[in-house]
């Protein structure tokens, strides 16, 4: 189904972000979510917390679907700002320095794929350090001084 993506702050996402809990499941549950008009959900036979894959010109990512309390806004989905939304929004600034966070055309489909935690997502999408995803979790991965491997 074709949709327009709107991103922005939600109070729950901001709560976990400001708390410093971005690696944790609670942040994923609050942020990796597409809030949809109930009528749109029904069109795809989606229940709350079902998973969807969303694809734009710039990338694709798996999110939870949930009912929007700000409806009606048929055809528009809202994703809290964060590492998941970033993958599909447009970097285009039109020479005005602000990328395009709102009004991105995208397509959504129902999926069984998992919604990734932040550490997994960053490693999988950007792959800067070639880490093994199975080592990544809600806990920070680092070596203490003098740790033996």
């Amino acid at each position, binding site marked *: 189904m074709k949709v327009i993506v*709107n991103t*922005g*702050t*939600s*109070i729950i996402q*901001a*709560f*976990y*972000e*400001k*708390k*410093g*809990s*971005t*690696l*944790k499941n609670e942040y994923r549950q609050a942020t990796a979510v597409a809030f949809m008009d109930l009528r749109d959900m029904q069109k795809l036979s989606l229940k709350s917390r079902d998973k969807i894959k969303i694809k734009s010109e*710039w*990338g694709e990512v798996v999110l939870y679907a949930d009912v*929007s*309390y*700000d*409806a*009606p*806004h048929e055809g*528009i989905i*809202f994703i809290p*700002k*964060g*590492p998941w939304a*970033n993958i599909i929004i*447009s*970097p285009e*600034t*039109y*020479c*005005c*320095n*602000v*990328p*395009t*966070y*709102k*009004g991105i055309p995208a397509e959504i489909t129902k999926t069984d794929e998992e919604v990734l935690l*932040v*550490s997994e997502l*960053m*490693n999988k999408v*950007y792959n*800067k*350090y*070639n*880490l093994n995803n199975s080592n990544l979790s809600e*806990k*920070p*991965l*680092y*070596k*203490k*001084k003098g*740790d033996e491997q």
Partner: protein
Amino acid sequence: MIEKPIKDYDKEVKNCSCSYCGNNCDDITYLLKNDEIVGVRHACRIGASKIINDQDQRLLSPMIRNDEGILEETTWDVALDKTARLLHNSTRPVLYGWGETSVEAIKKGIKIAEITGSVIDNQSTICHGTSIQAFQNVGHPVMTLGEVKNRADVIVYVGTNPMDDHPRHLSRYTTFPEGFFRRNGRQDRTIITLDPKYTNTAKVSDKWIQFNMDEDYLLFNALRMLLKGEELEEKEVAGVSTQQLEELIKIMKNAEYGALFFGLGVSQTLAKQKNVDVLIQLIEDLNRYSKWSMLPMRGFFNVSGFNIALTSETGYPYGVDFSRGYPRFMVGETTTIDLLNRREPDFFMAVSADPGVQFPGYTIKHLVNIPTIQVDTHWGPYTELSDIVLPSTRVGVETEGTAYRMDSIPLFMKKVIDKPKNCHSDEWILTELYKRIEQLKQEDE
């Protein structure tokens, strides 16, 4: 979620200044037990989470990536030396962030940018930078929030949802409190929200006007036309009926004191700064009939302070490029997202900011190919992309310093508890970096 009141504390510290959003509420009480903060009074949910935050995800020691790509703890000397060397040897460094640190630290950052020929930029570049461009195009009719509290009888929120982003904005500054000329608070005021969504702010407003996304420019121009007495041929503009628009402009025109707040819903949608241009012109026009002023809803608690400090020191508000030894500012050229999209930078340092949370994926991809430094308090998406991590302290909790509210009122933020042992303030870290870079420059000569 019902939380029990906290009774088990041994000390209260009053009138602390919150370190979350541009509201900078300065009436916060911290409750302490054994020199730890165990409770927070008066803060909103998000503010409280910033003050009592996750300690198991705190960055507690400087770290550098080892050969396996894993961050490994190291000493401050090693981490600072390496950072200074990387920055000194780079040709197109970008120093980004600054929204959640003190003006004192920001001023050190500007000095580093100057001596290293860096670009220094803050979150304006992804948020209200377009609003600042509009101020530069058209004008800047603003006020402090107390003017709204004391005088305003009509308040308009456009493309912003303070109930979620700036939770105490309505209760502390605009809608609910008693004002000198508005003794009955909420009852004396008309609140109108313009938003494509039925937001929590719309829900507490007297009037919600839903308009089509990306059609802000059209909408505001139509309002200007109506104000000037022109007639609209269309029955509907941006999804809003002409009749609704006529009613709206009538309320605005008849206000005794009107205040308009706008957010990223205006500055980030398609026409960007052009949206804000028209909005400013609307405010200017309204001042022929009554009194109106406006304010962008600034996000981080010191994003405005960075703009102020940078203009004091360099003349320009954000996106300042020192590569020629003197400041240059060119929207779309010397601004972070454009630089990264063009794959120009060869060094990137984020201070009290998380590009992993804030930047588009396409933009972030360049950070994979260049040295990246993080100066921050907590583990976050950007840590997963950082080569060197320098753990810092929380302003207003562990470190004192100055911040500017969204309406540019300066506030002095207190130090209330001790910092974690091996963390240092942003100001200290940047001062140390500055010294080391000066040393490297002397060695070059």
